[in-house]
């Protein structure tokens, strides 16, 4: 019974995410595309909750939806995104579709074949403790953690430097 509920929820969100994803890449309105992305990301967050990964879900919402998409919207605005509909597809649509289709077919086939019969155990009642995530980060994965923080710093500085306007020499 519980399993059935699970499946219904899963398939609901599956369809939601699929449709939203397709709309991201085919929408004629850039703002709509960004918003459809929000829908996809929220759908993904719900999946995480389903999969006992609440912390990741909330981080997803905070960072992705809250920061990244907002950043995208800023980018759209700063580059004078056309309001209203316009055609944003280039001439490669057929090739792209073929490529994407091929990729989907191959990867899904392989993945299904590789993990055939393996199940996720939904019998547990508790989600993953944040404590254990914290322990993992700060003991085993402390080095990647530090590197990622340096990476963020670099990205920050890089973004500032790249988008700086050219200024003349400082007048004394």
């Amino acid at each position: 019974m519980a399993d059935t509920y699970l499946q219904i929820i899963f398939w609901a969100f599956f369809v939601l995410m699929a449709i939203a994803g397709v709309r991201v890449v085919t929408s004629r309105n850039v703002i709509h595309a960004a918003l459809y992305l929000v829908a996809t990301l929220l759908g993904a967050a719900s999946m995480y909750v389903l999969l006992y990964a609440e912390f990741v879900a909330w981080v997803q919402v905070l960072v992705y939806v809250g920061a990244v998409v907002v950043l995208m919207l800023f980018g759209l605005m700063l580059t004078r995104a056309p309001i209203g509909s316009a055609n944003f597809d280039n001439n490669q649509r057929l090739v792209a579709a073929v490529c994407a289709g091929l990729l989907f077919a191959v990867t899904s086939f392989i993945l299904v074949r590789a993990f055939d019969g393996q199940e996720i155990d939904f019998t547990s009642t508790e989600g993953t403790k944040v404590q254990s995530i914290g322990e993992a980060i700060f003991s085993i994965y402390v080095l990647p953690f530090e590197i990622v923080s340096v990476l963020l710093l670099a990205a920050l500085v890089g973004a500032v430097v790249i988008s700086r306007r050219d200024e003349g020499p400082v007048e004394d």
Partner: protein
Amino acid sequence: MPVAYFLVLSALLFSIGVYGVLARQHAVLVLLSVELMLNAANINLVAFSAMLGEAGVPGQVFALFVIAVAAAEVGVGLAIVILIYRNRRSVDIDEMSLMKW
């Protein structure tokens, strides 16, 4: 529930992201598609972490890292797009073909 369902979902989202990267003309829309692809990878990771139960915590850890890296990448990518826009008054990728023969 077979883990394969989640894997197929992730593959689907990834492919949709690939289509977007290849087919979209607007630079920011390409970046959106890239986010889609990264999300697909995240779903994959978390699904495996759930499959492994107690030992699957590293999956979630990596998912967090991916989110952080994605954020960094978006920041820099948008900075570049804005710079291109400033120089060329356009974000049409088809026009950015200086390396054309």
